[in-house]
């Protein structure tokens, strides 16, 4: 045997021919191509949809409580305590089952947190905090010339509108 030359194959063994390797690669390549096309199409469509915040139980709980508060509300004071009405703060006066009213402040100023504070006769009677929620924004909303509705929205990190809910108070005393 010459130094540096490949060792001779044992009797009866051989490698693949070029045709065999090409056929195998072509078949497997076709398979990989189909998989790639499938996943690309899937991911492309997924990117069109915003994050499903509504699947988060804390988001559902916050929106349910907010809907109830707006439904029971009688008016929206401009200020209360240290809070002022704005896109990150909602202040409302809501009728309670007892018949008395409570001042309720919804504070969305802390990122990924929702804080609901209820005040009765100047004293805070309850505080509820939801964590891990998107950054909500509050707007006043007019329906049929009645500007007493509330619109709450939340965008995901890519700017997709994920939450958009309109709440309006029920009529009181009618």
């Amino acid at each position, binding site marked *: 045997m010459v130094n540096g030359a490949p060792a001779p194959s*044992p*009797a*009866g*063994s*051989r*490698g*693949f021919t070029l045709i*065999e390797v090409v*056929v*195998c690669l072509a*078949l*497997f390549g076709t*398979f990989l191509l189909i*998989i790639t096309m*499938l*996943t690309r199409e*899937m991911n492309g*469509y*997924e990117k*069109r*949809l*915003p994050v*499903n915040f*509504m*699947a988060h139980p804390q988001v559902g709980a916050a929106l349910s409580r907010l809907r109830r508060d707006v439904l029971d509300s009688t008016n929206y004071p401009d200020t209360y305590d240290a809070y002022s009405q704005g896109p990150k703060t909602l202040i409302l006066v809501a009728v309670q089952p007892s018949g008395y009213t409570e001042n309720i402040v919804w504070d969305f100023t802390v990122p990924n947190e929702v804080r609901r504070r209820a005040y009765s006769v100047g004293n805070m009677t309850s505080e509820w905090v939801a964590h891990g929620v998107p950054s909500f924004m509050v707007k006043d909303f007019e*329906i*049929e010339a*009645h500007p007493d*509705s509330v619109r709450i929205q939340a965008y995901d990190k890519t700017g*997709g*509108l994920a*939450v*958009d*809910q*309109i*709440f*309006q108070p*029920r*009529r009181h005393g*009618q």
Partner: protein
Amino acid sequence: MRQRGFTLIEVLFALLILAIVITTTLLVFVDRTRRLQQATETILAYQALSNEAEVRRRIDFSQLDNASISFISDTKILTPLQPYQTYVTVADTQPNLKNVTMVIRWKNGQRSARLSMIRADTGGTNLW
């Protein structure tokens, strides 16, 4: 001892088994993702339906039939479902009662979400 490589049939058979395993796993994953997407689409659609219902509840009973047959409320949340169609039908079910049905169709009508509500004529004030 006799040594030999794999034959083409052996390699193809091994690849076939591998392809079946990968395809099955991928199909399960794709199906799960598709269902999650459908759930997200439905949630977006029902938010728009809920908003439209709030607006339609505020319209005077006498004006319900004259209101637009498309959605009046802002449907920006439906942007990911484009192209989509919205329509509203008002049917008289009983005297002084109207059935307002709001429908959203997307994916060329393959998917839809609908919400119906009954409005009653309360004699001047809206029923909330």
